[in-house]
């Protein structure tokens, strides 16, 4: 019941937001729901409920390992949103607030889905609910980004439905009873029809990989993250991509049970390395600091995919990285949103010297750069170290070499853009536009909180989290 509240509370909040009359007070619903959601998920993290094996939804170890992060991220974003929507008082926020709440409710459903069909419905619903968030700014560029998001994302979601059907057919072919929960599918094991399992894996990897933003299906990402408000970017990068990633983990467990785990791991490793390479190359070329964050997200999705291919040790590292990357990306998205707002542009051709104009946001932005490029002692350093160790343990020496080379290139690309934005002497136009922006506590505390949490995660990883990641890895790789 507590687990269902994670879904019901935000959805009820969305309904209230849609009916709420005052634009001025409506944004406060976000932190209200965010607080309840965070409290619930921490409670569930500390005292996990017993999930019936055949349940279609439930706060199982996999959900427990990831959902509290989404909750934390949403909490920070919800506080930021109050400050942000006050600045954007010229646009009505009814749709924005309602859909943001719906998105967090549906994300909670997606993370807890233990049934192939329910998982797909939740992911599809999140995809659709995010549409109004993407074109909140209402500019032609935002419409263009939304159109591409829908076409690419829509095709991806269609492919993952087809993949789900194929997995269902694999079960039916093997004499399955039509029960499409992941537990039942994995229990069929070698009885699943192998060719259909492989077809399903390819389609589901392409479909959910599109949602994650793995290259070459990442094309919607730079446009969407570049044109959407910072909070939306933070939630998409830390929350929506995570649902797709846990979906792949759950499917991977079924494919493993069917005896095709090695094939699945090879494809995950290849697509992960490819994503990292593509992202690193684009990072060296981009001149827009919001699009830069999108490519960085593609890179980290690649890291997750590589880690997921390395067995239980790798999955532990991947879940750790989901946390460290989500928190760090959140800090980067929110601080860059402040800079973008003050400078009225996101291009490094027009923005420079922001250390003088928005000193605190710039400080968080630079610290976030070091965190996301895996400098110690931030979280990503430790999670990526675990990934490297798992890969070395599995004997993937060439992959480790490529991995480290991509990280280095990405560091060059990211630091080039970040320091171009922060250093130098601001242009007169930027100085004029930044006068209208004040670095309020509401705009600074959330990114600072997320950055602090990323540091804390690196220095003192809580035992409860370690234990939850171990439990999730054990669920996905059951001992024979």
């Amino acid at each position, binding site marked *: 019941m507590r687990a269902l509240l994670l879904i019901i509370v935000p959805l009820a909040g969305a309904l209230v937001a849609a009916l709420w009359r005052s634009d001025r007070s409506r944004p406060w619903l976000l932190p209200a729901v965010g607080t309840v959601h965070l409290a619930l998920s921490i409670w569930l993290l500390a005292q996990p409920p017993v999930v019936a094996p055949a349940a279609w939804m439930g706060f199982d170890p996999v959900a427990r390992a990831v959902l509290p992060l989404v909750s934390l991220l949403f909490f920070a974003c919800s506080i930021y949103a109050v400050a942000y929507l006050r600045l954007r008082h010229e646009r009505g926020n009814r749709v924005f607030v309602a859909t943001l709440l719906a998105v967090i409710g549906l994300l909670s459903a997606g993370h807890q889905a233990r049934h192939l069909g329910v998982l797909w419905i939740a992911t599809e619903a999140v995809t659709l609910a995010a549409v109004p968030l993407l074109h909140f700014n209402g500019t032609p560029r935002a419409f263009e980004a939304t159109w591409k998001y829908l076409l690419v994302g829509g095709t991806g979601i269609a492919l993952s439905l087809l993949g789900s059907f194929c997995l269902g057919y694999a079960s*039916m072919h093997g004499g399955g009873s039509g029960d499409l929960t992941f537990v039942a599918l994995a229990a069929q094991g070698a009885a699943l029809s192998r060719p259909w399992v492989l077809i399903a894996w390819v389609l589901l990897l392409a479909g959910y990989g599109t949602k994650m933003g793995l290259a070459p299906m990442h094309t919607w990402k730079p446009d969407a993250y570049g044109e959407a408000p910072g909070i939306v970017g933070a939630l998409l990068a830390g929350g929506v991509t995570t649902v797709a990633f846990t979906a792949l983990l759950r499917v991977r467990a079924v494919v493993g049970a069917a005896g095709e785990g090695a094939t699945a791991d090879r494809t995950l490793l290849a697509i992960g390395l490819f994503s990292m390479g593509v992202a690193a190359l684009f990072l060296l070329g981009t001149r827009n600091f919001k699009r830069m964050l999108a490519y960085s997200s593609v890179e980290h999705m690649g890291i997750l995919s590589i880690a997921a291919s390395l067995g239980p040790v790798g999955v532990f590292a991947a879940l750790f990285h989901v946390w460290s990357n989500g928190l760090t990306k959140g800090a980067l998205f929110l601080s860059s949103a402040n800079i973008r707002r003050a400078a009225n542009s996101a291009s490094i051709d027009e923005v420079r010297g922001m250390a003088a104009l928005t000193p605190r946001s710039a400080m968080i932005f630079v610290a976030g750069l070091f965190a996301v490029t895996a400098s110690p002692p931030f979280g990503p350093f430790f999670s990526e170290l675990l990934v490297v160790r798992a890969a070395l343990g599995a004997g993937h020496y060439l992959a480790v070499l490529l991995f480290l080379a991509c990280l280095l290139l990405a560091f060059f690309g990211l630091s080039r853009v970040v320091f171009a934005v922060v250093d130098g002497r601001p242009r007169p136009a930027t100085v004029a536009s930044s006068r209208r922006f004040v670095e309020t506590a509401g705009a600074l505390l959330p990114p600072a909180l997320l950055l602090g949490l990323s540091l804390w995660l690196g220095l003192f990883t809580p035992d409860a989290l370690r234990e939850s990641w171990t439990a999730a890895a054990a669920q996905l790789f059951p001992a024979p």
Partner: protein
Amino acid sequence: MRDLNLLIGLAMGLNLVALGSSRLPSIIRATALQGVLLGIMPLVLEHDIGWQVVAVAVATALGKGVVIPGLLQRAMRAAHIEREIEPFIGFVPSLLLGALGTIAALAVARSLPLLPEHAKSLLVPGALASMLTGFVLLIGRVKAISQVCGYLIFENGIYLFGLLLIGSTPLLVEAGVLLDLTVGIFVIGIIVDRIQRAFDSLDTRKLTVLRE
């Protein structure tokens, strides 16, 4: 089985109609008719027709055959566009692709390990051919409305494949799936409306500001 294969054959023919026509109203009509055919299929397929099967059939026929085509026609009238001019992939090449794809789909489906009761049915080749048709329209046309039709035909192919499972999986999921798909297109339809207001042309070639 023969009735079902007749319906699927008709749907496959409509794929070719959609590929070969340059006028948007005829593409929309072909898509709508295909939607209605798809709605009839579960009734032919299932021996004991319960209310769930009827619900799926009615929802499919209404959604794919009436509501979405209606929205598309509205968007088309609002933008005063009737024709697809200068597609990326011409009409004759698209038709050839579609015809070759249909033959290939029949060949591929034969080599797939299907259950004996599905081996004689056209469901899988029909699904593959429709997905291919949708894909050609999606990438080969420039007008947003033709692309949406392509997406719809692509989804029709997935639906055809899903019919293989209608007996074994709970229909609840099928209905939810159906609803989601319909809403998905609905939102795309609204976006088309928005794009039209922002660009006044419904020409996706003009969506080129964002590139690297």
